[in-house]
């Protein structure tokens, strides 16, 4: 077992992990942060996206030991300080950008990373960026719309309903 220490959502945490323990398992099992979901085993679905030192990372692809000393942000830390939904979360709710909710944490974390790098993405840029996030419920229409709305763009012209 290896001892790892990291900052998760602004809080210092530590734990003993096996060499094979994934960051996703550490967050879910050791830290009880079950908002990071595991939807596949091959780094394809993106339900487990978190931010490690500010970069979007699939937490099922990274060993917990690799995140030793890092700053990790998960979906549980995304709300505003007063507990209200942040701009991206609110846009997902306003535009019905989620249904079953399972892919949603990864979608929100990916969207945050996209908008940090590209504050006003085009529809094509949003769609290309989401290559690594699979949603089976929404057909992506309202996810794309929500992310563009969260970036402050007018989405009223996007195909009716």
């Amino acid at each position, binding site marked *: 077992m290896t001892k790892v220490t990291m900052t998760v959502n602004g809080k210092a945490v530590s734990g003993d992990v*096996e060499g*094979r323990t994934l960051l996703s398992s550490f967050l*879910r099992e050791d830290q*009880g*942060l*079950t*908002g*990071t*979901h*595991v*939807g*596949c*085993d*091959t780094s*394809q*679905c993106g*339900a487990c996206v978190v931010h490690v030192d500010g970069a979007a990372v699939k937490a099922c692809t990274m060993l917990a030991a690799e995140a030793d000393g890092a700053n990790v942000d*998960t*979906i*549980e830390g*995304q*709300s505003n300080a007063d507990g209200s*939904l942040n701009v991206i*979360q609110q846009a*997902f*709710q*306003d535009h*019905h950008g*989620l*249904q*079953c*909710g*399972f*892919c*949603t*944490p990864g979608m*929100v974390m990916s969207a945050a990373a996209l908008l940090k790098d590209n504050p006003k993405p085009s*529809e*094509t840029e*949003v*769609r*290309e960026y*989401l*290559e690594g*996030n*699979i*949603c*089976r*419920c*929404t*057909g*992506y*229409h*309202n*996810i*794309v719309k929500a992310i563009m709305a969260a970036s402050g763009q007018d989405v009223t012209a*996007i*195909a*009716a*309903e």
Partner: protein
Amino acid sequence: MPKDTGIGASPVRREDVRFLTGTGEYTDDIVLAKQTYAVFARSTVAHGTIKSIDTSAAEGMPGVLAVFTGEDFVEVGGNPAGWLINSRNGEPMKEPKRPVLAHGKVRHVGDAYAAVIAETIEQARDAVEAIEADIDELPAVVDMNDALSGSNFVHDEIETNQCFDWGWIEDNRDATDNAIKNAHHVTTLELVNNRLVPNAMEPRASIGSYKASTGEYTLHTTSQNPHLTRLLISAFVLGIPENMLTVIAPDVGGGFGSKIYHYGEEALVLAAAKKLGRPVKWTADRTESFLTDAHGRDHVTKIELALDKEGNFLAFRTDTKANVGAYLSNFSTATPTFLHGTLMAGNYTVPLVYVNVKAVFTNTAPVDAYRGAGRPEATYSLERVIDKAARELRMDPIELRRKNFIKPDQYPYASAAGLEYDAGNYDALMDKMEEVADVAGFEARRKQSEANGLMRGFGVNAYIEACGIAPSNLVGVLGSRVGLYDAATVRVNATGNLSVMVGAHSHGQGHETAFPQVVAEMLGIDPAVIDIVHGDTSKIPFGMGTYGSRSLAVCGSAVVRATEKIINKAKKIAGHMLEASDQDITLENGVFSVAGTDKSVTFGEVALKAYIPHEYPLEDIEPGLEETAFYDPANFTYPSGAYACEVEVDPETGKVRVDRMCAVDDFGNVINPMIVTGQVHGGLAQGIGQALVENTSYDENGQLLSASYMDYTMPRADDMPMFHVDHSQGTPCTHNPLGVKGCGEAGAIGSPPTVVNAVIDALQSGGTNVTHIDMPVTPARVWDAMQNAKSEEA
């Protein structure tokens, strides 16, 4: 002016907040005290005889608490088929036992033959590797034609791989044959409805627990219908009395059909929990999901359409082989028959329909209902052959459909495939589609595509489906072994807030938002005081769950009936409080008034009186304000639609891009337009996925080649266009109180033929005489078809 509350409004979903903040609770998120972990040993061969399984090494591994094999379950029952189909000769279908763990033989890759329970999941995984299974590999039965002609049987005891040979409508068989023999024109098409994996993003998971002091079992599981799961486990598999088993489906991360069924893992964790006296948890990884979730579709069909010289449809004749996989999943026998054959008249006044379906066992994963379940297969066959006929007869595909549509004044309409359609207006849908899809602008867009070196095609489709899957009397006659009503309890609490317990169970459909809209509208109160309780058999009345686009049409109707009972009783209480007859009490905006007077009491005051019945006519009215209703509808509901698609095909690569997708649906009345639109979006994406990218591929040895997201193409955001969705042309359902029909599957039913029709149109207009390409219409298939057409011309 859109409403902001009640029926017809689109409030934001209340369940979203927990999902957006990572505080939803899915089965795998639950941690029970002293929880242990199950991992399954699964067959790596598609077909084999189990000679021996040596678990001794595994039992000695660190942390291992127990190892189970098929031997441990020979005394218990099997997982049954929910629908009995009789063959044309009257014989009942072949129904081999589906055990909790494979015993004697393994029958598909992924078939579980043992399970390890350990303190940690890693220990359980390690121990599974130490199980010594001596399995003699047998030749695999994969192709359906081979399965039907050979003597290599998936289930030796039934001595055939044919589950049934079903005819519908058998009395029309000869007349249909004659109509086709004598017709002016017959269009024939052979096609494959490709096998799909549902791929809910949340993998299946189950936690079994057992309380020795009371003998009570609890199963937390990823289910669309917890009561059905409880019934199957209790009555058929483990024999646990129903009142000793609670099934809880917490938040469910998508299902699309795959979480309707009871699976062996659920029984295993319950049995193991009892043996160990500790909770046992199992969570599928994605490859296990691919190997063991019930797959969808997998039909091979020949369809013929007979027409007279004016283009009137005379008969449809269909010959289908339906793969049911290695075992009968719970609704696998209903899907290719009564959910498929009964829809084979489509939206049309065709007088004759005959459907033959042979269901075939193979050494592949079980196949069952997947979003649309039988109706996508019916629609695809019909709408592809109609499109081909239009081309052969040089008729406009829209006009050919319109010519044969059932007209609005013909309802109720007895279809040639045995259903009675209650309402619809297919011409109105087609009119609206032509407007929304801007059909008039197509030629200009085609010229633009041509200027860019691309071939543009336009495809159209009209569909009808049967949903609100119910009427018990009807489905009983057709072979269903369960009733298909639903139930709701409306509990008004003393302080005026409400708990509404429903048998439906949301796995993404927004029930927690939509059902309160109905109750709030009826009572004239704020929906915020209404809470939906679902998914827990210890809290809700016996309901049949969510599938077949039934939640609102069936369970929503039960909610209406229970709320009506609440209103009736509340009026009696109000009448007493106001010293008036309950006949004179009116309810408006949450206030009970005596008609023609200024005397009134609020809904909250009545609720309080019901629970603090001082000065209360106990001889006439019981205290409390809680009512339950079971609703069993008179008929299916019949959503319909007109879809349009425009694709661009790159002649250099064969790559197809969907440029425009338009869905105009008749869902009857709509409770929450935002949610309905979202449901259509998701269906469209799954349908476009089936048409263009998704395929489940087994090799000749029964190895699943597409068992991960590296190999099975899931539609991504950049495969999809923005969608044009309209549901303004609703004709209300005539037999349920809300006039609703169901919207969950429409997109996946209507879109595949629309996309393929558009691709064929693009190739034809580009000068290539391609008449059909099987789904998924991949670049390789398009390119091949183009080259073959060219070489045939040359």
